[in-house]
């Protein structure tokens, strides 16, 4: 298998058509079309690090050429607003995405060496050549810094693409966990795949911007991507987003200090929750269903935690209340009423939560980046970029699902994909516990 052929469709199904192959306006930014079916070969996954070596060598050589072209293009675009060898650079970006997707288990087939369009289940769509802004070109290396920090957190920066040396960002964590999951079940978990695709998607935008392929700044919004034809699974813990993007500069400047009273209250409440969770664990283990009162108490704590951290990390503008009341805050957590829970999952909850906790550490890094960038942007512009805000909402939602799993609010495993759509601000479709 050379990887030159398009990915074969599952037996009995018509060949998948990449959405962007249809007529329509060109994509503004580089993006990835996903036709991956989540099936994985255990053998190739087991040996993935070895199998990818030829590609890493080719990628390293190709990278040298791409850098040289980028330098030429920097001068060229500065004088003519135009670039040269756009096709070659596009091919490089496609190839790098294929290789990194393969390496990180985001796709199954061994990729081809040409980086041909439509040849892989992760198919990058590179925007067509267009005139570039001279200012953006001149200061590209300065402008790229925030994107580079986020890309580094995601693990898709220079070190991961060029030298074979890998930076241990979120995508590496995902791949590490996915390796074990695939070995066990022969499939890539949907959430991990989507998260990996998000990282790659940001990575290709970042590289397209850095290599002067486009002057469109990378978009960190996880909700604008397509992660495949299937809808994301439902979950008993959902989040509703805040439509407000305005930020008060004064409260932004002092955001950390304004968080302190909440921090004290969180710590005190957390002590009580420690005991209620232990009690709930016994109740759920023996009765097979959590106690309503403890579910409400722990749910309020989780909702409060989400509200407070959304405030701290500038996902929201308004100072939150201290009781975690449902419907009291723009970013609100919707927690389904208690249901029967699997006793095995309850008994081994702490062990089962371990992989999710590892992902949470990476997602927590994203939230920190959102907070830091949001602080600077909020201070200067008085508003929060929608992409950063949505990334923060995703991180909060995933953390809430992990904590909800630990607090025995549900036995449904947290969904790590960013594709789980958020509820509209006014929604209260999920009933709150009585």
């Amino acid at each position: 298998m050379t990887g030159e052929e398009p990915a074969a469709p599952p037996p009995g199904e018509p060949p998948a058509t990449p959405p962007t192959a249809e007529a329509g306006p060109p994509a503004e930014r580089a993006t990835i079309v996903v036709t991956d079916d989540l099936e994985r070969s255990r053998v190739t996954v087991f040996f993935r690090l070895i199998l990818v070596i030829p590609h890493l060598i080719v990628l390293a050589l190709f990278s040298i050429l791409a850098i040289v072209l980028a330098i030429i293009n920097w001068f060229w675009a500065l004088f003519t607003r135009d670039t040269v060898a756009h096709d070659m650079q596009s091919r490089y970006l496609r190839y790098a995405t294929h290789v990194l997707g393969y390496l990180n288990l985001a796709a199954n087939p061994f990729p081809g060496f040409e980086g041909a369009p439509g040849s892989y289940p992760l198919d990058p769509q590179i925007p067509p050549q267009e005139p570039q802004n001279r200012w953006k070109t001149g200061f590209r290396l300065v402008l790229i810094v925030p994107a580079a920090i986020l890309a580094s957190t995601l693990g898709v920066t220079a070190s991961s693409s060029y030298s074979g040396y890998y930076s241990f960002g979120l995508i590496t964590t995902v791949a590490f966990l996915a390796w074990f999951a695939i070995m066990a079940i022969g499939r890539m978990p949907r959430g991990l795949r989507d998260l990996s695709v998000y990282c790659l998607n940001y990575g290709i935008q970042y590289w397209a911007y850095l290599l002067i392929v486009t002057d469109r700044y990378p978009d960190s919004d996880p909700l604008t991507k397509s992660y495949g034809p299937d809808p994301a699974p439902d979950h008993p813990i959902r989040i509703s987003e805040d439509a407000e993007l305005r930020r008060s500069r004064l409260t932004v400047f002092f955001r950390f200090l304004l968080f302190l009273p909440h921090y004290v209250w969180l710590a005190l409440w957390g002590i009580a929750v420690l005991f209620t969770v232990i009690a709930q664990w016994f109740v759920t283990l023996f009765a097979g269903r959590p106690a309503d009162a403890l579910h409400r108490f722990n749910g309020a704590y989780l909702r409060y935690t989400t509200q407070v951290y959304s405030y701290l990390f500038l996902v929201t503008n308004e100072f939150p209340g201290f009781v975690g009341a449902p419907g009291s805050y723009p970013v609100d957590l919707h927690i389904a009423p208690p249901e029967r829970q699997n006793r095995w999952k309850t008994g081994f909850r702490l062990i089962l939560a371990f992989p999710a906790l590892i992902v949470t550490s990476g997602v927590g890094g994203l939230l920190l980046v959102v907070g830091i960038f949001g602080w600077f942007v909020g201070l200067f512009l008085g508003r929060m970029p929608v992409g950063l805000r949505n990334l923060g909402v995703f991180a909060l939602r995933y953390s809430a699902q992990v904590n909800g799993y630990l607090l025995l609010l549900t036995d449904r495993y947290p969904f790590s994909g960013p594709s789980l759509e958020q509820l509209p601000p006014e929604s209260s479709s999920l009933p709150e516990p009585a």
Partner: protein
Amino acid sequence: MSASPAAGRRALVALGIAAAVALWIFAFLQLWQTSVPSDLSLPTLDPTHYFSQDQIDRASSYQTFLSVDALLALIAQLVALGIYAIKGPGFTRESAAGRIGTGMLLGMLGLAFVWFSQLPFGLAELWWERKHDVSSQGYVTWVIDYFLAAGGEFLFISLALLIVMALTGLWKRWWWVAAAPALVAVTLVFAFVQPYLIPGQHDVHNPAIAADARELAKQEGIPGTKVTVQNTHNLGGGPNAEATGLGPTKRVILWDTLVQRFPNSQVRVVLAHEFAHLSRDHLWKSFGFMALLALPIALLVALITRRRGGLYEPASVPLAIFIVAVLLFLTLPLQTAFTRRLESEADWVALNTTRDPAAMTGLFERLGRLSKAQPNPAGWDQFIFGDHPGIMQRIEMAKAWKQRNPGH
């Protein structure tokens, strides 16, 4: 001719107010009393016997800048809070926290206004201190420290507003009666735990100082009082010491800049002075004084904010903060006079304990030179900001003690 019921009620109210004022004055006079002999008259000494004319001139110039800077900072603070009293209620839209939570936010934002208003003056002070080699702290470090220090104030005002606004929910008109003692109680709790919050403390390593500390504490009737040394040499400040804590947590903290640079005889005087603060219950007296101030201030806040719905409404918080700031500004001379009196008593007790006026004189000469403090501060400066007696006054007290105790 019989008086109407309204006139009778007015008379009763007037009588009640008169009784409250009399009680207030009585309590204040009780706190005002110290063990310094009332007939003690300080001799007038010539500063040039202790400091060169050049030192006095430079100290005068140095101190004048700092005092003017502090006065301007105080005015800027009042202006900032005045603006905040008008604009502050608009910030209620930044909160989804309900009545009390919104009040807490507005309280913290009030301090944020103060923070900004004080920043240039603080930087000017640091620049001046660095210019005169009194401080070696960097500007960035100072700003970061200043920012983080605001965190403690934010927490305190949040707690204070939590208490006050919860009380307004219980007693809309009479909350102030309970608020003053409640706030003092909170301050007491902070004072109790404060010794554990001060970083970089260790036991006294110098055996002579440790022995002196044991002996002096015993002499002053507080045997076994803990003494620690705090590492402050990295902070770039001058020598200092403090008495802190309440009951079982009380202790004396010597800065390492004092222990390392001053002779033991002078450290001994400092120890005796700090022990005196503890043995003469100066912290308790300070809390009593604070309670005396808090009660009328709370009453005035309740009366003035009534038009905005009282402190029950979070929108009244900015105005309340402004009123408190103005009242604290107006009573500042009284506050500094009170602390000056306690410091004088601590000096006097230290003299009685150590019986070493020469060491005290040497200590203040040295402190004066290091801190570049004006030996005789300007009257207005001492009236507003003088929370300790002037250097010459303290030397004069040592002299007066010597005159009363010939042979030392």
